[in-house]
Every structure is written in structure tokens, then in C-alpha cells.
């Protein structure tokens, strides 16, 4: 058995578990995941911003792609429809921005789909917008800093792929007593923010974000599968080490 073969087994196992748990959780039971304080803070910040009549700003990433968090571009897009609940759709009290043309186009598609399912995008004179402050990561940083200033954004949530520039956004919000929440899928950003932000989502915890929007989320099969895979990987490592030590591998 080669390592590559183990890789295909892991892919197959994950697919089977995901499908199995999707059916299982559809009808009964749920996987109780732990609470993450940062997520509670996101909910509070979001609610408080809406209550104050302030616009929310959701940054979905400087780039579609992130290596470290391979799915973070896709992940931020899959968070977007969950974030766009009825309240926000109806009030249009949110702006979505990214630093990548692809992400902006995809985000616009998602927003229109959300309105399309409910009532016409055209019906609302002030729908949620998807913007591109600038087309490259560095220029996008400058663009977003300006947007935060012009629009007096008091609640900024970052998901997806941002780098060390997150610390500039965080400080911009901090100076104006605004709310900043980061579920960025990039360790550079997490390390830069760690000294100054209490409730960061670090590492894989970002994948728990959907729990913020619904207790019975479709991500439950994913959480369960990931925990099982985690145990499988630990088991494979320990077993392989033992085999190695006794000379069987």
C-alpha cells in the first residue's frame, strides 16, 4: 500500500461519510459542535450594527485562492448566502467587497440568486452590492481603507483570504470604535491580528463559522466527517510510527 493509495482512500472515505451523514442528519439527530466565543461576538456585532442602522461590510477575500486554507475562496463564497439573511436583503444594509475580479463576479451572482429566490432584485432600490475596491491585493487594501472611511463602516467582517493588511483594517475600525470580526483563512493575517484582537477565529475554527447563522446547518455532515477524518489521520500516523519502529514499514 503506497501513500498515494492512502490518499485516494481518504478521498473515497470522505465522500462516503459526507453523503452518509447528509442523509443521516437530514432526518434525525445533530452533531453538537463546541461554541466558539468569536462566533458569538460576530453575531452580536452584526446584530448591533444592524440595530444602529449602520452598514455592514463583508470582505470576502483579496484573492480567490488560498493555499494554506485551500477552500477559503470557495468557503467565503459559501458563507455569503448564509450571511445574506432576510433582514439584510430587505434593508440592503450590507456591502460586499473583494480584491479579486473573480470573487466580485461570483459574489454578485450569489447576491442576485438570493434576491431572485425571494423577490426581485429590481424591486429593491437599495440592494446589497458587491464591489471591487481595486484589482490587486495591495491596491485593494488601499481601496478598502478608503471605503471604510468614506462610508463610515462601523462593522467589518473579513472572511476568505486576507494577508497582513488585516491589521490595518482592524485598527481603522478600532480607532472609530467600530466592530471588527475576522474569520480569515490565512495564518499570516491571524498572526498579525493575534496581538490586538481577542476573538479571532484561528486555524480550522473558521470552518465552524456556519454555526453562527443556523443551529441546524448543512455543514453538520462536514463537521462530523472532518472530526472522523482527524481521528483516522491520527490513527494512521500512530500506527505507521509503530510499524516503522518495529521495522515493518
Amino acid at each position, binding site marked *: 500500500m503506497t501513500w498515494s493509495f492512502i490518499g485516494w482512500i481518504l478521498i473515497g472515505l470522505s465522500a462516503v461519510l459526507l453523503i452518509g451523514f447528509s442523509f443521516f442528519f437530514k432526518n434525525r439527530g445533530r452533531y453538537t459542535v463546541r461554541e466558539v466565543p468569536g462566533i458569538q461576538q460576530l453575531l452580536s456585532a452584526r446584530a448591533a450594527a444592524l440595530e444602529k442602522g449602520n452598514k455592514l461590510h463583508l470582505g470576502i477575500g483579496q484573492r480567490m485562492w488560498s493555499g494554506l486554507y485551500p477552500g477559503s475562496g470557495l468557503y467565503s463564497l459559501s458563507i455569503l448566502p448564509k450571511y445574506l439573511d432576510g433582514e439584510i436583503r430587505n434593508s440592503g444594509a450590507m456591502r460586499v467587497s473583494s480584491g479579486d475580479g473573480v470573487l466580485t463576479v461570483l459574489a454578485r451572482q450569489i447576491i442576485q440568486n438570493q434576491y431572485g429566490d425571494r423577490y426581485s432584485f429590481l424591486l429593491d432600490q437599495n440592494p446589497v452590492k458587491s464591489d471591487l475596491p481595486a484589482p490587486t491585493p495591495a491596491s485593494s487594501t488601499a481601496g478598502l481603507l478608503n471605503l471604510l472611511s468614506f462610508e463610515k463602516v462601523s462593522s467589518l467582517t473579513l472572511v476568505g483570504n486576507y494577508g497582513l493588511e488585516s491589521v490595518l483594517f482592524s485598527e481603522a475600525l478600532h480607532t472609530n*470604535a467600530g466592530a471588527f470580526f475576522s474569520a480569515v483563512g*490565512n495564518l499570516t493575517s491571524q498572526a498579525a491580528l493575534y496581538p490586538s484582537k481577542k476573538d479571532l477565529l484561528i486555524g480550522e475554527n473558521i470552518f465552524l463559522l456556519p454555526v453562527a447563522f443556523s443551529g441546524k446547518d448543512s455543514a453538520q455532515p462536514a463537521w462530523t466527517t472532518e472530526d472522523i477524518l482527524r481521528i483516522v489521520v491520527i490513527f494512521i500516523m500512530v500506527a505507521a510510527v509503530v510499524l516503522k519502529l518495529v521495522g515493518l514499514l
Partner: protein
Amino acid sequence: MPVLICPVCGAENPISGEKCLKCDATLDGVTPLDAPVEGLSGDESLGSPTKDEQDLPGLLQSLKDEGDIGEVEESLQNGLASNDDLSDIFAEKEASDEEVVPDWLERIRQRAKEEPDAIGDVTQKISAALETIADDKDENKHDDFQSWIENIRKPGSAHSEDQPANELKKENLPSRLSDEDWLMRIRKAEGKLPEGPDPTEQKGNSLLQWLIALEEGRETPSKLGDETSAADEEGDEFSSPITSGDYQVVNEQTQKIATPFKDVLDIDRLMVDISDEEQEQVNLFETVVTQENQAGQQHRPLRKIKHWIWRLVISLILISGLTASLLVWDNADISGAFLSPQNAAFLSWSEARQPGGSLLFIVDFQPGYFSEIMQISKPILGMMLEKDMEISLLSTTPSGELLFENLLAESTGEELAFTDLGYLPMSSLAAYGIANHVENELLQTPESPIVLPAEGYDGILLLSDQAEDVQIWVEQLTALMPETQVLLLLTSQAGPLSLPYWESGQVDGMISGVVEAAAFESAVSGQTVSPVGMRAYQLGSGLMVLMLLLGLTLKNRPDKDDIGEGAQ
């Protein structure tokens, strides 16, 4: 249908369950209880809207979404609230002047007036939903609710055993009264029926009216924001009066106003559930808010000034220190810089290159890092050009070609020719693309703009500022082209996360940061090389060490993350 109510979290569980689905607490000994309202409460009805429900307008959908918590008491509340809210919304069609009409509804109405067709989709769905709900209500809702609440009130029933009576009063009862007799009776029995005039009709200076005014836009929304900064001056941004616990000091009753913010922001729902006693409390609260608000308005400029001064001081110290060291001290001591194993491997690889070979450089860094990358790649570029290697370039940043031209010019002092394979906008696709690049004449596929030599390259050198990009390239190249030698020239920040790829053998050599590059250059040239600005760098690093050490002396105050305050 009977259900089991979890004694720990109150969630509704199927009768066959042994453990709570939400919190895993044991359900042994819990007496089954009738489910409150079929179709309106519980996980299924509220948590997972049916296909028809998903077609409801956004507002209805959001009301449905409120109940997505699966807890009996909350689902009862939400069930009733949703029910009532729906009634209210439709009642708004014949709204009185006093009613709050949100902007979005106003726009719908406006559009409906202007365009007869526009009303169709929305109002038809609303009407259909109204009819469905009204039908449900007529058929069985009242009976179910009454029997359920009677069950709760029965001495010795599951709930009264597990939860104190006063808790039931406060939390398990519907948060909102309607005109229904049965509910009024329950309220009377629980002692919650207001004796005075209907609180919703009260005039006077109340939070209720303030909330209405806020909704109508008469009151400036920034009041809450100001109050946030006042109540939590210099504090955690996330804290708001509603969530930070300020409400808790007023009374448990008023917590009922605060808690719904966790799930929904339905001001309309909040307004109706206020009794006389609550009215007094909210008045008291409003006074507190007003005072805090005034204080906040005074504090905000102060906060900004503090920030400004603090930033100015730090900026001046750092910039003047660095400038002074650049102007005064030229050479720095870097005797502590030794070749790491990954640097030594890079050196071995460089020395083993035969003249006339070919290399592919991938430029994957932003122009801001040009200076650092230039210092890192200079010795390598010099070595490779001495061996007359053929150089190709692939960029994943728009300015990649320009940056590389400048790198060559700055490293060698002359303009050198190289093959430009162009700009590819996404690292992963670029990596996957070059690994799969083949011409197929049989299929007559278009010629790809990327022209790679058939014999491949002697090495692929990645110049990057981000560990994430390194990961993409290394993952794809080692998965698809395991025979290719991959070498990394990285900024300091990309180093730590790229090291595992060196240790796993996926990378054949690596240099990260100016200090490692200086050690490499020293090893190549046989004499100690001190990069320009090294002394300034050491000074800056020293300042950072000092700040981190100073930070150790501060007390942990997570609610106050303002540095100006903390530094004092």
C-alpha cells in the same frame, strides 16, 4: 405528538430518544409532553423550510429563520411570535398612522402602486402564506397550545419538575400577547396581565417610543453607537449595550428585550411585550442610556486624540531611529548568521548546476516586497547568470515581468534577455496548467500560449512573498511533476510555513529573509557580507522586542483593548 423536553437545555427530542439531540444530556426519567404546535414549532418546521416556504418573500423567510433553534420554549415563543408577526405584517396592509412601516415595505407598497404587476409575485405569496397560516391556526393551533401550556402548568409535569415555576413564567411563556382570549387567560393566571392601560398605547418618554422613533428614522441611530463607546469606552468593539450585559443590571424582565438580539432583530416584536413594570424599568434604562450617550459623545474625540498621539509617538520613534541608523551606522554585525540546512541545500544545488542549463523563475510577489526579494535573490541570480543559464519567466502578479526585469538589472547591472511565458492570473491554475501542458495534434487543440521546453527545466525557482502561494505551487508541482526540482526564494514572513515542505523533501532548497540571504552570500563569496540597512533592521527588531517585553507588564483586560489607555 408527544416529545421529550431536555431538562438541561430545554430542546425538543423525539419520544424514542435516550439522549438530547442538542446537548447529549440523558433523557432518562423525562416525562413525554405534547408538542406545542405541529408545523410551527420545533426543528423541522422552523429549521428547515420546505420548498414552498423557501419561495416565501424574504421577510417571511426571515421570520421562519428566527425559530431555527430547536428549543421548546424558544420555539413556542418564536412560533407564536412568528404567527403574530405574520398577522401584524398583514394587518399593516390596513395600517394605522401609528404603525411602524419599514423602508423596504414602503418601497414594496410604492412599487405596487406604480406597477400593478410588481405586486403580483410578492403579494400573492404573502396572501398564500397568510391563508395557510390562518388555516393552520383555525384548525388546531389553539387547542395544541392550550393543552401544551396546561401540561406545563400541571403540578408534577415534566417541565414543572425540571424547571422552577418562576423560570417558566419568565422564559417559557410567549413573549408577546395577542388579543386571543386563551392567551390572555394564561397571562392572567401567570400574573403577567398588565393592569394598567395597554403599554403599547402609552405615550410618554419611554424606550418603546424611542425604539419606534429609531425605526422611523426620527431618532438618530448613532445614539446606540455613541452609547456603546460610552458604556464601553475604549473597550471591546463588539460590546454593545444590548449584548455586553448592561441590560442585565436593570432587571431580568428586561433581559427578554436583550436576548432576542442573538437571533433576530425584530423591533416590532420587542415593542409589544412591555408591561407597566417593564415600562418603568425601560424608562430607567433610557435615562442610563442617555447619560452614557452624553458621556460617549464627550469621550469619542478624546479616544481619537489618544490614538493619534500614540501612533504619532511610535511612528516618530521608529522612523527617526531607522533613519538615524541608516545615516550614521553603515555596517552591521551579522556574525550570528549561519547557513541553515535548507540554505546549505540551496548552495549545493546552485554549485551543481552545469553551464547552459535552463531555469524557470516564477514571480509571485507583490511590488511592495521588491526590495526584500531583491536582496534575497541577488546572490543566486548572480551565480546562475555566471553559468550562462537560460532563463524563462512566468508571473502570477500583473507586474511580474517588470519586477523581474528590474531584479536582473539591479542584480547584474545590465539588462539580460529571458523568455517571458506571460502572466497567469491564478497560482493554482498556473501550477496545474504548466504540469499538464502538452500539445496534442490528434485533437487539434489550440496551441497553448505557455511554451515549455520538452526536456523540462533544471529547476523551478519560486520568488514569493506568501506562504500560501508557496503551498499552491509546491502542492501542484510535487503532485503532478514529482521529478522537478523546486527551490524557494522567500520573504521572511513566508518562511515558517514553508519549512515543512523543505523537511518533507518536496522542496530542494530554500532561502527566506535577508539574514539567510546574507549568510548564503557570505558562504558563496567567502567573506562576511552585511546588507545595506542591516543595522536599521536590527534596531527595528530590538524595538519590537522591547514592545513585546513592555507588554508583559500590562494586566489582562480583554474588554479594554485600547493601547493609549493601557499604556498609561
